[in-house]
């Protein structure tokens, strides 16, 4: 596979390249579950593309095509029974599904429905649920690292046997929040795993314009924490490397930075025409290094039958069809709900004088065609 920046040779004690070739301690059932979540991620996003093209998605659409393995495999290494918590980034839909996010919630979010998890306040996969163990991101990259440092600090203070996982992209490693958060967590020895999902591009900016570092995992050395790099398109390698980090964190070993090498086959969002990508690059990754294709080959070689895989695919399609129907039938929010819940006290703001007695600001909720649908 194409892998950037493996020329530097950091101390062996800190950095390992995981191949994922070792047999993981996963049962057949668990390995099929990994397949299910990867398929679910891809099919859900494909359905969202259909809805987007029908202008039923209100905002932009973000894909993780070709990156499903890194999100699913890493999240799968957390222990939901212990109350582990993750905070995803925009290409980590798969990690949320592993934690129990439901496709219908995602579709409602994209469609800005009144009964979506954020009641129409936030977009796309920007939502969370502390009970199921995921905290919604904000758009300011890197900000979730300090937040997850605090979440895991609370685990440590309360002597809870819980671990946190936070995702950032290659671009976010340039932010101050990433640095401050990871340094704080490192000093406090918080039970935190930081996954840097290196997909080659931050919007249109390639990695070489993002950093002069040979590889992002090298940053671990500067923070005095463990660092590992793995093939993000190998779901088992991703699971294994994260599992090691999760175990280390749970055992009191502090923070690990993991760089997962992958590739973003779609643009930043659906509107992005990827004119900045060298010719043939996307096609090469698609044909040679698709994480689902690779995993299917492996599963078949391990004796899983095609019929079993087909059954999973059928199940995924049925689930997404049902979720789509439910989301489409959902109502849009009541406009006055926009004034509820800014504070615990007061629980609701009064309407401004020019909205007194007025329920809705516009007669018809139509988007003029000139607006397009490509806002981010």
């Amino acid at each position, binding site marked *: 596979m194409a892998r950037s920046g493996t020329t530097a040779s950091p101390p062996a004690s800190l950095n390992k390249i995981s191949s994922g070739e070792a047999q993981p301690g996963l049962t057949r059932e668990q390995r099929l579950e990994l397949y299910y979540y990867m398929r679910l991620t891809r099919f859900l996003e494909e359905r969202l593309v259909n809805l987007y093209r029908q202008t039923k998605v209100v905002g932009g659409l973000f894909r993780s095509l070709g990156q499903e393995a890194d999100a699913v495999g890493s999240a799968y290494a957390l222990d939901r029974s212990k109350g582990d918590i993750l905070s995803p980034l925009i290409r980590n839909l798969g990690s949320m599904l592993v934690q129990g996010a439901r496709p219908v919630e995602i579709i409602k979010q994209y469609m800005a429905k009144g009964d979506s998890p*954020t009641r129409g*306040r*936030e977009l796309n996969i*920007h*939502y*969370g649920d*502390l009970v199921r163990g995921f*905290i*919604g991101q*904000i*758009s*300011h990259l890197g*900000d979730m*690292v*300090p*937040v*997850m*440092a*605090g*979440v*895991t*600090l*609370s*685990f440590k*203070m309360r002597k809870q046997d819980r671990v946190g996982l936070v995702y950032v992209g290659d671009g976010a490693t340039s932010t*101050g*929040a990433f640095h*401050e*958060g990871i*340094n*704080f*967590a490192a*000093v*406090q020895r918080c039970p935190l795993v930081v996954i840097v999902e290196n997909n080659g591009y931050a919007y249109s900016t390639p990695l070489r314009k993002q950093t002069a570092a040979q590889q992002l995992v090298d940053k671990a050395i500067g923070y005095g924490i463990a660092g590992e790099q793995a093939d993000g398109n190998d779901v088992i390698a991703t699971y294994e490397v994260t599992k090691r980090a999760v175990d280390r964190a749970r055992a009191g070993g502090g923070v690990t930075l993991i760089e997962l090498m992958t590739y973003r086959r779609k643009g930043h969002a659906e509107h992005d025409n990827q004119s900045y990508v060298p010719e043939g690059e996307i096609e090469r990754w698609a044909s040679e290094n698709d994480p689902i294709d690779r995993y299917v080959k492996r599963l078949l070689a391990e004796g899983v039958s095609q019929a079993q895989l087909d059954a999973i695919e059928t199940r995924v399609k049925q689930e997404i069809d049902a979720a789509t129907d439910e989301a489409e039938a959902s109502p849009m929010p009541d406009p006055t709900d926009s004034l509820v*819940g*800014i*504070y*615990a*006290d*007061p629980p609701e703001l009064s309407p401004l*004088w020019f909205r007194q007695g007025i329920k809705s600001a516009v007669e018809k909720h139509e988007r003029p065609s000139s607006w397009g649908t490509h806002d981010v």
Partner: protein
Amino acid sequence: MSEITYLEAIREGLFEEMERDANVFCLGEDIGAYGGAFKVTEGLMAKFGEERVIDTPISEAAIIGAAAGAAHMGMRPVAEMQFIDFISTGYDMLTNYVATARYRAMLPCPMVVRGPSGGYVRGGPFHSQNPEAAFLHTPGLKIVYPATASDAKGLLKSAIRDEDCVLYFEHKYLYRRIKEEMPAGDHLVPIGKARIAREGNDVSIITYAATVWKALEAAAQVEKEDGLSVEVLDLRSLLPMDDEAIVATVKKTNRVLIVHEDTRTGGVAGEITARINESAFEWLDAPILRVTAADVPLPYSPPLEDYVLPQTSDIVLALRKLAAY
């Protein structure tokens, strides 16, 4: 009971809340072993240990972000900015992450960000700021700024118990200059309620923080020299603002002077003026006046700082102008 200073009142509030609730913890730069740049947290680490009084890296974004994460999980963090001037390096975390958490994600974020604020201390441009107006514009945050020792304690305790993020500005000029006996028992001052610092009938001064004391000095002077009866309203909370108390004093005196130490343009006084305009315009007998700092970064040298910041004589001048209108 004996009198304690404004600074000691803050410390007492921290002690009491940490004793009352094991979820309360403090984090900030040099707050533990050293006791903080102004010694507000002195003795806290000895009493509660370094797990609950955390010396952090120089990292305001991490301090505020980590406080938010811990608050989501049910902790009650009290984050210290060594000087409130440095809150600007955590501005993104506060305004984008913390302030929106409840609304966009239904995530509670009960936390306090506190720090020494304000001038009159020859601190120069980066140790004298009053950044409250920058946050007044952010839905989801609360802002308090006590002027007295008992309010310092009572507001801090209320802030720690509030279900949302409260920015708690403490005026460093007042730290050791004012003393007061604390009310007995579990002393709480409600957030969002102003206080009449002095009753009067002719002119109202609406103010907060250190300029409450300048306003009181000016009120005493014009009473003695001009026979004017001046009411001083100490807002105590800026967000939410006590509109009821503001309108009540406008209706009582019909003449309003707004005083604050922060710079003028886009300041809190402009917001108060707009609110009075919208809800009590017909009760005014004179235009609303403002006495504020000039629109400059706060300079260091005493003649410069004194010239820029509002002084008692400025307030006296404004009161006379309003009374004569």
